[in-house]
């Protein structure tokens, strides 16, 4: 096993017992100094209690390897916080979608606006005045929101947190004409990045996916967005029933020519409980076999590369520097607040990493926020082993991989202890995983293609 690890990790393994117990203790009791956080650079960080949590010599900050154009900070409490805001309504439910989205005749926009603001205030109060990394309006279809709502929330967030001038503010938008018409108002509200749900540039596919817009409308929405926002991205769903590789390459090329610097390209997934799940089970349509899906995936990366877009995450492609900063916070297992129905949240508070959930049903969420100021249904302190698993299952989706020092800082578990040594060795040998020159562990393209099979055996 030792041969599989670079020198730095052997050092981890050799001092493992003492560090392991100390890290465990960290989860349950108060302490001042918990343990050494070794890193490949041979520097140590020390975990203090009392609000400030992690501290590390500046040397780490300066010396850390970077493989992604957007840097990943290493100090959990000091690092900027991402803010997710969920808008739970759509005009219609798409047959493949299992997001927390609901169709309503009438939406009391002012009440939802007020409630979202209350939850934001509630969380800001608890979080303290931390630096803010990004805001993301997701859904659902947040472009159905009144732009005033976005404006109010952006303004609140800028007031409550330490926001940089170039704060990334993303809005998910559907490319119907109604919503395209509101894009300018969203820009005025402070949105500076849109992610359009184009899904396909083929009419037949859009019908199959149950979308309420045409390809032409989508293109028009894109054109308009390009004129309004410095950064745009859009989503496509591929590996659809019967989709030929050549056809997908053609569709994708067309899309790449339209986009500036970021694309999310998702293979169609059958989610339990959706209409597609029923139809698929009934045999109404079939998805491509895994071999075919793998070929489509490879073709996708090839086409994207021609336009200078690299896969920085399993399904996300960007020009260096154009990555979604907000989503990177998730994948790097950073702190994020999540407000609105069903939103999830991960924040470090007093050394505990809290997993927080909110009520999913819009009306119940609203009633609770109006009654209690928030609609939290569960607040759980994650055990070190759980944190390590979460950090790894997110981090290995990224092309940059995971920094052992950061994994340990976030979870309290050394990377070497979070992995099955035999599996690590086997995956390295097979070329599914590799150590970068800087000592990060990353899944290769082949590895990322099989991540769901790898993680359950690799993670402890």
């Amino acid at each position, binding site marked *: 096993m030792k041969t599989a690890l670079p020198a730095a990790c052997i050092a981890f393994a050799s001092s493992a017992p003492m560090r392991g117990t100390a890290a465990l203790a960290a989860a349950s009791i108060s302490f001042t100094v918990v343990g050494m956080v070794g890193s490949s650079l041979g520097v140590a960080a020390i975990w203090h209690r009392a609000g400030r949590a992690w501290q590390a010599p500046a040397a780490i900050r300066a010396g850390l390897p970077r493989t992604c154009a957007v840097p990943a900070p290493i100090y959990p409490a000091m690092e900027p916080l991402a803010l*997710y805001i969920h808008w739970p309504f759509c005009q219609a439910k798409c047959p493949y979608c299992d997001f927390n989205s609901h169709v309503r005749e009438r939406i009391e926009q002012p009440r939802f606006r007020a409630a979202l603001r209350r939850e934001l205030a509630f969380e800001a109060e608890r979080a303290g005045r931390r630096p803010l990394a990004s805001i993301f309006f*997701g859904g659902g279809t947040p472009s159905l929101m009144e732009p005033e709502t976005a404006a109010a929330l952006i303004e609140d967030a800028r007031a409550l947190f330490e926001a940089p001038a170039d704060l990334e503010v993303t809005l998910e938008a559907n490319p119907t004409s109604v919503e395209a018409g509101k894009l300018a108002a969203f820009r005025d509200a402070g949105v500076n990045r849109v992610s359009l749900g184009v899904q396909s540039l083929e009419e037949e596919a859009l019908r199959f996916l149950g979308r309420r817009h045409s390809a032409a409308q989508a293109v028009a929405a894109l054109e308009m967005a390009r004129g309004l926002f410095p950064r745009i991205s859009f989503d496509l769903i591929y590996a659809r029933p019967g989709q030929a590789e050549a056809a997908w390459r053609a569709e994708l090329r067309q899309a790449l020519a339209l986009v500036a610097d970021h694309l*999310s390209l*998702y*293979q*169609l*997934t059958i989610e339990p409980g959706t209409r597609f799940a029923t139809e698929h089970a009934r045999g109404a349509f079939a998805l491509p076999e*895994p*071999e075919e*899906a*793998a070929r489509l*995936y490879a073709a996708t990366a090839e086409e994207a590369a021609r336009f200078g877009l690299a896969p920085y995450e*399993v*399904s996300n492609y960007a020009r260096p520097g154009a990555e979604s900063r907000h*989503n990177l916070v*998730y*994948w790097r297992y950073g702190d*994020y607040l*999540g407000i609105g129905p*069903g*939103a*999830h949240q*991960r924040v470090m508070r007093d050394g505990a990493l809290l*997993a927080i*959930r909110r009520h999913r049903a819009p009306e119940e969420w609203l009633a609770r926020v109006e009654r209690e100021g928030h609609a939290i249904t569960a607040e759980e302190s994650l055990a070190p082993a*759980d944190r390590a*698993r*979460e950090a790894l*299952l*997110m981090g290995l*989706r990224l092309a940059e991989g995971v920094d052992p020092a950061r994994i340990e800082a976030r979870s309290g578990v050394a990377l070497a202890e979070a992995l099955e040594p*035999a*599996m690590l060795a*086997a*995956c390295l040998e*097979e070329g*599914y995983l590799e150590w970068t020159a800087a000592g990060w562990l990353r899944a290769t393209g082949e590895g*990322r*293609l*099989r*991540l*769901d*099979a*790898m*993680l*359950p*055996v690799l*993670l402890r």
Partner: protein
Amino acid sequence: MTDTPLSQIRNFSIIAHIDHGKSTLADRLIQATGAVAAREMKEQLLDNMELERERGITIKAQTVRLAYPAKDGKTYVLNLMDTPGHVDFAYEVSRSLAACEGSLLVVDASQGVEAQTLANVYQAIDAGHEIVPVLNKIDLPAAEPDRVKQQIEDVIGLDASDAVEISAKTGLNIEGVLDALVARLPPPKGNPDAPLKALLVDSWYDQYLGVVILVRVKDGHLRKGQRIRMMAKGQVHTVEQCGVFTPKMVAMDSLGPGEMGYITAAIKTVADTNVGDTLTDDRHPATEALPGFKPSIPVVWCGLYPVDADDFEKLRESLAKLRLNDASFHYEAETSAALGFGFRCGFLGLLHLEIVQERLSREFDLDLIATAPSVVYKIRKTNGELTELHNPADMPDGSLIDSIEEPWIKATIMVPDEYLGAVLTLCNDRRGQQVELTYVGNRAMAVYRLPLNEVVFDFYDRLKSISRGYASFDYAMDGYEEGDLVKISLLVNAEPVDALSFMAHRSAAEKRGRQICEKLKELIPRQLFKIPIQAAIGGRVIARETISALSKDVTAKCYGGDISRKRKLLEKQKEGKKRMRQFGKVEIPQSAFIAALKMDA
């Protein structure tokens, strides 16, 4: 006190092929003699255990004492002994038969004589029984009593002219059976004044009473409070209770010669009682034990492992509980590199194995992996040492082996003519040696000598399928013989999986090796890595297959809120892995083990 004169006692058993109506007839006899009130009557009174009821197989011997007022004005005691109905329990059957003077030979008049009928009737004849043929199911339109009588005469050589024709189902002519028992069976012999000699026919564990022993008194008396000695090992117990089954347990002060009944004597486990043993009076012991005692020896062994390693202790407890009531199966802890901690278990035969396995999963709710059943080989090493091999994994290195002997059986197969060809091919493929081939009407009777090793591999299943279920099969052990046997190891990802190794004749080794590799390829799902599968004899690979790596398996969209869900899913998958067996970087699902053991050609 049972002081029935010997002349008014009849002890009998019922011999029948499965489903020919033994249990139904027993029910009718019990009913006709009023032993059970009509409202208490439930079907198949004697088949106690749930499993027995379901499979129509009697595992434990049982008796019921019937009082029959015969035409001569006297009331007779008719003791019906229900014997275990399967070849695996041949020895137990022989002891049950030794407790009786006669048998009813029940033959389904629409089906005729079957293999099991034959084996059992020969045993009864060997035991010196008077045999009364009974043709059952004559209510069926397909019944051919005359043809079947002829068959009984031709095949078994018994006079069937006085066969009693009945329908156990409708109750037709049950009187006839009762009268025949009184008139045609001899009364038991015995000396009431001699020292006690009683045959231990069977025993079982009762939650409230402890071990209950089923006995047949030959000489003297068995009394409550008596100090009795078991002659095989000399243990002494005090009789706490003795009595008879009607079929309810009814306590008696004593049991005299010729009687069948039970005793309890504060015995903790049936392992302390040996079927066939002789009970005698500790103070006035008999000088000689009854003939025919032999300790039970397992013929088939296999490993039983909990699917979930955490169930090991539960398995141990469950085996101990089962053994309370079934001393004929043996177990000892063993470890397998592949399967972890488990037990090597010995059985009287394949059915016995299946019953125990089924009871473990049913009564104790255990998920088990069973390794390939293995017979007991006798290995002579080059240094002259003789050892018994119960587990192919323990096979010594080839260079240390001088010769290997394997057990053979003598099998009797009865099959309609049209399937005979297929059956003979099967027997020949399995290294069978034909002993006899005769016809009984349009049914053929083939007697073959076969290596038991060839039978434990799915022989029953094959026989059933090639004969559309019409073949009947029975066997008896038939000694050991040297054979050219090799151990075939299975290597998954270059690592030997001890639990999949098995013994085979050299001539069949390659084919078997190839079949099992192909099967495993089908059964082991594609995984993260490509997996070579090999079969080898010693260091020589005789077959190989490769399972290619899975080509794609990754969640397309994953951000934000998904994390807990993803983690929980991951944890569930990890939990699921517990049900799989990990071999280095490969996991093998339980189903692969089970199915790999079943070979269809």
